[in-house]
């Protein structure tokens, strides 16, 4: 295999795929990227057996087609440290790869391309197009609520539900939940569900940054997202996601509306003196105002009061302040609406003007 291209053209696909290449690998080949030259198009593939990303680049000269694998980390570090605008010549033969640029020359070890594992692409059941930026908003509005390393393994991921012209994303760690809807172009009769693994969700959010339209294909065991210069494939988590609809609070009678930035800043300050382990904050709701109080084991205390639109019974309720701040951070509008009922029932938090995303936070008993 032999080709040449600019440093920048090569860096782009390398940086797209390097995230899935783990540093500590039991299988040596998994720390490599697969380079495939087909015509004038170079494909760079990285995988961790669960998530696979292929990045594409056009080469300047395609001298000899072929495929080979080299260390992702070292190849990226070399390309990164070459000067801007450098031209890179790559060639491989006899188990070695050569990277030449100007007066720099690197000889890298290779592993055979036919040993590089691919993530199985089974049958696609459904397929739809969606703007990358919408998909990114959907993921970013919900991914913070995914569990991490929970034994309920299906919570370490994100539920996607596709119905007629609608894509819904749900994430929960059992204490709080995020749910967001986006419009997408699909004619479909019945609901299709899939659980994307946490790592896939995080990588996908990095990939779909731009305005372009991406094509999403879902099968029973995998999901595939094709963008203009990348292709993302992930295995799906096999498991039954909890019935999220059941935990959406319905009987809340205490409607509070306030300024998001004001509330966020006040909670942020209160959090400083909350117990570092439990992060508990006590909220006292009364006509026209929310008061928040935090104490820590050193007997220090923070107290804040924020004016809000509320008229009704008083309520005292405790929350993990980090959960509230997470929500206030991902919401974008000026106003925020809280719906509460009593001190042991969940709170519903949403944008005052935009109902496409809702957040549920369970209280703490303080």
């Amino acid at each position, binding site marked *: 295999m032999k080709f040449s291209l600019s440093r920048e053209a090569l860096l782009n696909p390398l940086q797209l795929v390097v995230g899935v290449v783990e540093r500590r690998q039991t299988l040596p080949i998994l720390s490599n990227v697969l380079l495939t030259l087909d015509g004038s198009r170079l494909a760079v593939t990285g995988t961790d057996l669960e998530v696979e990303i292929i990045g594409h680049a056009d080469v300047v000269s395609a001298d000899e087609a072929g495929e080979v694998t080299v260390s992702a980390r070292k190849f990226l570090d070399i390309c990164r440290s070459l000067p801007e605008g450098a031209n890179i010549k790559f060639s491989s033969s006899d188990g070695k790869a050569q990277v030449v640029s100007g007066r720099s020359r690197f000889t890298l070890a290779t592993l055979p391309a036919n040993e590089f594992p691919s993530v199985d692409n089974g049958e696609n059941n459904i397929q739809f197009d969606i703007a990358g930026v919408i998909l990114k908003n959907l993921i970013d509005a919900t991914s913070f609520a995914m569990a*991490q*390393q929970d*034994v309920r*393994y299906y919570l370490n991921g994100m539920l996607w539900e596709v119905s007629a012209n609608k894509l819904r994303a749900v994430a929960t760690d059992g204490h709080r939940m995020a749910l967001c809807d986006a419009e997408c172009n699909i004619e479909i009769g019945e609901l299709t569900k899939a659980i994307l693994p946490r790592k896939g969700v995080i990588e996908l959010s990095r990939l779909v940054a731009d305005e372009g339209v991406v094509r999403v294909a879902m099968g029973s065991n995998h999901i595939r997202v094709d963008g203009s210069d990348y292709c993302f494939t992930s295995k799906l988590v096999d498991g039954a996601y*909890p019935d999220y609809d059941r935990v959406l609070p319905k009987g809340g009678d205490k409607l509070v509306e306030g300024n998001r930035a004001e509330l966020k800043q006040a909670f942020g300050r209160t959090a400083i003196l909350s117990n570092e382990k439990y992060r508990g904050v006590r909220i006292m709701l009364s006509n026209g105002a929310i008061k928040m109080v935090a104490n820590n084991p050193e007997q220090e205390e923070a107290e804040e009061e924020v004016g809000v639109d509320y008229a009704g019974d008083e309520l005292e309720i405790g929350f993990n302040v980090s959960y509230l701040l997470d929500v206030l951070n991902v919401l974008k509008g000026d106003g925020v609406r809280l719906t509460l009922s009593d001190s042991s029932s*969940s709170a519903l938090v949403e944008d005052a003007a935009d109902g496409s995303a809702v957040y549920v936070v*369970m209280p*703490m008993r303080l």
Partner: protein
Amino acid sequence: MEPGSAIRKIIHCDCDCFYAAVEMRDDPSLRQYPIAIGGKSDRRGVVATCNYKAREYGVRSAMPTGQALKLCPDLVVVPGTMAKYREASMKIRQIFYRYTDKVEPLSLDEAFLDVTECTQCSGSATLIAEEIRRTIAEEVGVTASAGVASNKFLAKVASDLNKPDGQYVITPQNIAAFVKQLEVKRINGVGKVTNEKLSRLGVKTCGDLQAFELLDLVDKFGVFGKRLHDLCRGIDNRPVNANSRRKSLSVERTYSGDLADQPACMLKLPELLLELRSRLRKVDSDYIVTKQFLKIKFNDFTSTTLERAATDSLPLESFEGLFDEAWQRGARPVRLMGLGVRFIDAGEPGRALQLDLFD
């Protein structure tokens, strides 16, 4: 002197080779032999405790029984009876409580007592320690050693100095001279690695260590540096914690033959889990399980532990999942497996309970 700043009187009481002492009490004929309490060598047991005769041969706690028998071929290995030791331990604890409520048990045979406010023996901690040791010998039939000092660190070091059946007192006036010659390896927390690191710095005694600035020690040893800085001067303000609470609970087993592969290990998981569950039923209901973990020691003695968030239900499948992942890390025959859980303590003051969305 103000009440808050009064010099404390702490006793560290430690029974002498406790399990072996209980066995010799119940069968005096054992006294003439070197004995060890622990698992049999053909089942790959380890020595839990041994008597002083056995120690003369170099037998030590936590030594594999096979190795102990090589050092001392006449060693009598007695399988332990936990229930018996627990009963003796409870009797000893009751003796402590005659003097103070401020008792912090460290294990079945070891405890700290804060006797600052005791009025017995004219308030003399030295006399109280003597009386306690005499009472343990009379009522329980085993001997204990004690250290008396103004804090936990010094009391613990002191209890080791006149073992067995003796005690050592460090008066406030003697602290400076005592720590000056005290070897740093006697400090709880200074193990092999830290000791080697200190040796390289030319530090052998606490006196040597006193020459180092606080910031220097923190830089070299992290948070432990602050503690070293205090301890080498004989300072330890930790209170005797009468109701110290559990942070975790675990069960483990060393198998008499290596478990060859994954299926062989999987077969052993249910009985370990049953044991864990039965132990869990005995702990306070204030403890809430937050994490579960699984430990494997492979036959090359490397070990690995995997931990996940968990709830009280602890299904077998969740441990099987942990096992699969942990096994990959060594992928060789397994010598030991352990299961455990970590708690948060709802009884702890100031603690908050996060409610769950799904029950």
